[in-house]
C-alpha cells in the first residue's frame, strides 16, 4: 500500500448507467437489430463450446456491452469460435454470429 494508512478507497462495483456510453452499442444495433433482443435465457452460454475453455458467454457479452463493460465483453469474445451453435439454440432467433462479427468489427481490444 502506497500510503501511511495501509488502506485506500476500494473501487465501486456499482454499474452507473448514466456513465455508460451507448454510441457504439447504438451502432451495433444499426448493424444488427437483434442486439437488444436477448432475454438472457442463457441457452447460448450453455451450449457454447468456447465456454468450456474460457468464460465465453454471449449472454454476458451482450449484457456487458449494455452496461458499458466493454473490456469484459471483448475478453470473452476473444474465445468465440463462431461455430454457430448459439444461433441454433437461441429461442429468440437472434442472428448471433452476425452479432458477434459486428461486435468484433466495432469494438476494439485493449
Amino acid at each position, binding site marked *: 500500500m502506497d500510503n501511511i494508512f495501509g488502506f485506500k478507497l476500494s473501487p465501486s*462495483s456499482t454499474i452507473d*448507467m448514466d456513465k455508460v456510453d451507448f454510441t457504439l452499442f447504438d451502432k451495433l444495433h444499426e448493424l444488427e*437489430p*437483434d442486439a*437488444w433482443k436477448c*432475454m438472457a435465457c442463457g441457452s447460448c452460454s450453455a451450449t457454447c463450446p468456447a465456454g468450456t475453455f474460457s468464460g465465453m458467454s454471449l449472454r454476458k457479452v451482450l449484457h456487458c456491452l449494455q*452496461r458499458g463493460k466493454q473490456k469484459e465483453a471483448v475478453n470473452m469474445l476473444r474465445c468465440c469460435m463462431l461455430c454457430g451453435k448459439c444461433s441454433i439454440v437461441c429461442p429468440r432467433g437472434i442472428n448471433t454470429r452476425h452479432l458477434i462479427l459486428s461486435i468484433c468489427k466495432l469494438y476494439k481490444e485493449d
Partner: protein
Amino acid sequence: MKQNIVIVGGGIAGLEAAKRLLRLGYRPIIVEKQDRLGGHVAQWHCLFPDMTPAGEVVSGLIRDTAEANIFLETEISFMNRLRDGYNIMLSNGISVIARAVLFTTGFSLFDAAKKEEYGYGVYDRVITNGDLEHWFNTGSDKRVDGGEIRAMGFVHCVGSRDEKARNSQCSKVCCITAVKQAIEMKKKFPDAAVYCFYMDLRMFGKKFEDFYISAQRDYGIRFIRGRVSEVSEDIDGRVVVKAEDTLAGKPVKVKLDLLVLMSGMVCGRDTESLASMLRLPVDTDGFFKSRNNVSAVVQSPLEGIFYAGACTGPKTIPETLAEADTAALEIVSFLYRS
C-alpha cells in the same frame, strides 16, 4: 319477472354481467358507489395487446346497459340473508329484496406511498401507472410535464409479490402494462432512455410476448432484472434509482427524469366489510374466496351470491368479461333451479 338481481359494482364486470342479463330478459340493479360507471378501466387510456382505446370498451358497455336499474353514488349499508334471497339496504334509503347478488366489486390499486423507499408522494418525479394512464388521457401532470425527459424508468411489482406490503400475489397485468406504457412513452420521447426494472417478466397472455420482443427490438427499452431497492432525489430533482442488476450480480444505479411505479392490483377496500355482512370467506390474499378456485370461481360458498372479475383476484379485462358472462349464466340457471 319479480326476481331481482343486484350487481354490486358498476365496473366492466358489473356492466358486462348486466348486459348479458338484460339480453336474457332480466333487469338487474347496478349499485355503484362512485358517481360514474366503468370503474378503473374508464380511467385507462389504451388496452394491450391491440391498443384498443379503453373509453370505447367502457362506453360500449354503458350503452348496452342503459336499460338496467342503475344507482350511482350508492353503497351497500346493510345486507342480510333471508330464507330464499337477500335483503339489501342501500345508502340512498332504498331497500331491495334480491334472489341473487353478484359481487363485481373489483380491486384497489396498491397505494404506492406505502413503499416508502420509492418516494411516491415525496419526490417530484415519481408517479404510478395509474397516474401515467391519466396523463395519457388528459396530457396534464406537472410531475411528467416538469422538464425534459431524457431517461425514465418503470418499477415492476410495486406492492405485488411483496410480503412486506402484505400482498404476496402476483398482480398479473403489470408486466405487460409496463411494457405497453414503456412503448407509449418511447413513442412520445424517442430520444429518452427507457428502463424497466423487473424481477420476472410474466408475459402470459395472447400477444404479450410479441409486445415484449417489440419493446426490446424495435424500441430499445432497457430491461434490467432486479427489483429497485431505493430511490432518492438529487440536487436537480432527478430521481436516483438503485437496484441490483441480478444478471450481472452487481449494483446498478441510474438517474431518471421520471419514475413510474407499477402499482399492483390488491383486494378492494370494501371487500372485508361486505364479506363480514354475510360472513363470506375472504382468501389469504384478501380477495373474496370462490367456492372453488378451479371449477367454481364465480360462485361463492353461499347460495345466490356470485362473483365476477377482479374481486376474486387480479384479472385481465378479457378474463373479467368472460367471468361476468359466466356469472350471468350461472345466475340465470340458479333462478331457474329455485
